[in-house]
């Protein structure tokens, strides 16, 4: 069965295969940055500022911090990790996946958001939410998944502080990350949700409903830490440093983040 033609065809396929993967790796230094979903708009702007200032580009991947932490433990090729919870960075550093324990880059806030036409009010104290649970106005409420998304964990804490967790649990809809939670919370399929302040401030999201800050005392602080992984190259380090410059801090401030060292 081993004819010459078959060998030629087979070797053609194999060499094609061998060529294709190497093309995929012929990449210039454009590091992939893992970023928590609450930074969807803020970090995109920071990356644009970085490009206009240094001419260098980075590739951004957004998702839940817990998910990225798991992937980094499996040697995912991220060079910088902007987490929504500094504990993820510290744990990764302890287990040898990061260069060092990283640093705090911002403190986040959560808001209650309601889509246009919702029977709920944008009441950050959650008093109206409590009333809505009692009188049946609330059918579905969106938060990020508390198991791996820091913004979901804080949403749960705020709901527990308000004494609403057990009553609202059967009505909860979980986003895989806080962006998806924002998607659900601003759709007509829920009456509202708890999402990141930085997402609510983005014009595209703000246009879809109204929101109000939830008092910071109702939950543990959202201490957002960033860190360089073991594979961080020159551009990654430059981007990490850029995130601490006044230009980047202005952008973070614009999206409602409290900066380390500044009063809220």
């Amino acid at each position, binding site marked *: *069965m081993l*004819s010459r*033609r*078959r060998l030629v*065809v*087979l070797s053609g*396929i194999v060499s*094609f*295969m061998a060529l*294709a*993967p190497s093309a*995929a*790796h012929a*990449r210039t230094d*454009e590091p*992939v940055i893992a970023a928590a*979903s609450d930074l*969807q*708009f803020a970090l995109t702007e920071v990356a644009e500022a970085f490009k206009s200032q240094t001419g260098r580009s980075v*590739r*951004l*991947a*957004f*998702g839940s911090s817990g998910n990225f932490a798991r*992937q980094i433990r*499996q*040697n*995912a*090729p991220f060079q910088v990790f902007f987490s929504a919870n500094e504990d993820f960075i510290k744990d990764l550093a302890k287990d040898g996946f990061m260069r060092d324990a990283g640093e705090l880059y911002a403190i986040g806030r959560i808001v209650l958001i309601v889509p246009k036409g919702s029977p709920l009010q944008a009441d950050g104290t959650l008093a109206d939410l409590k009333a809505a649970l009692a009188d049946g106005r609330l059918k579905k409420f969106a938060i990020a998944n508390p198991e791996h998304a820091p913004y979901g964990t804080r949403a749960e804490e705020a709901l527990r502080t308000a004494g609403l967790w057990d009553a609202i649990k059967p009505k909860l809809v979980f986003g895989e*990350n806080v*962006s*998806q939670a*924002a*998607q659900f919370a601003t759709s007509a399929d829920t009456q509202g949700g708890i999402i990141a302040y930085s997402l609510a401030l*983005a014009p*595209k*999201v703000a246009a879809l409903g109204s929101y109000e800050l939830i008092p910071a005392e109702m939950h543990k602080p959202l201490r957002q830490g960033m860190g360089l992984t073991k594979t961080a190259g020159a551009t990654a380090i430059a981007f990490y440093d850029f995130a601490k410059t006044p230009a980047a801090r202005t952008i973070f401030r614009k999206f409602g983040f409290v900066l380390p060292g500044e009063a809220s």
Partner: protein
Amino acid sequence: MDWPALWLSLKLGMLTVLILLPLGVLAGRWLAYSRMRGKVLIEAVVALPLVLPPTVFGYYLMVAFGGGSPIGQVWQATFGHQLVFTFEGLLLASVIFNIPFAIQPTQRSFEAIPPEVREAASCCGMTPWQSLLRVELPLAWPGVLTAMVLSFAHTLGEFGIVLMVGGSIPGETKTVAISIYDRVQAFDDAGAAQMSALLLVISLVAITLTFAASRRIGRRLG
């Protein structure tokens, strides 16, 4: 419109088909003509990816090919980089997951060839290889075409597995299906709508081609 993601998806589809073409033809042919006892079991294993949820599949792929597994470590030692979170890992997952799409239609079209035709070919002194190229493939081509078109279209649409073993790395594993998911989460409805419409058109064309070709399976010799 995420052109790098679209190009990545097309490249993944084309390479998957390229690898599955010889595999599908040879395996489909063998299964069609074989009369061994355990054939049903083999056919069931071939059909497994059809019924298994993609996340289950993705999970097992991660366990089998991840950095902690023997296969993953051999790969790492041989090629210097890992299998998961790379295009190669995605290609491997795609090839495995499309095996039923590559084998079943080709098997059916080889089964539709009357045994007398194959017997006549061997009486004429043709080797099995010559018979395949000059007698069977010209008869069975609709099934082969169906298999390749379905594999290509299915690869374009694969999401669950890509999410689990891909990691959504732009330019490496961020396929167009992942990109659509990403655009929706970025509140970029225009971008998501554009790419979804394009995928819809491609899928429709693929299905139409498949149906047109499959009607010719088994009809040639009446």
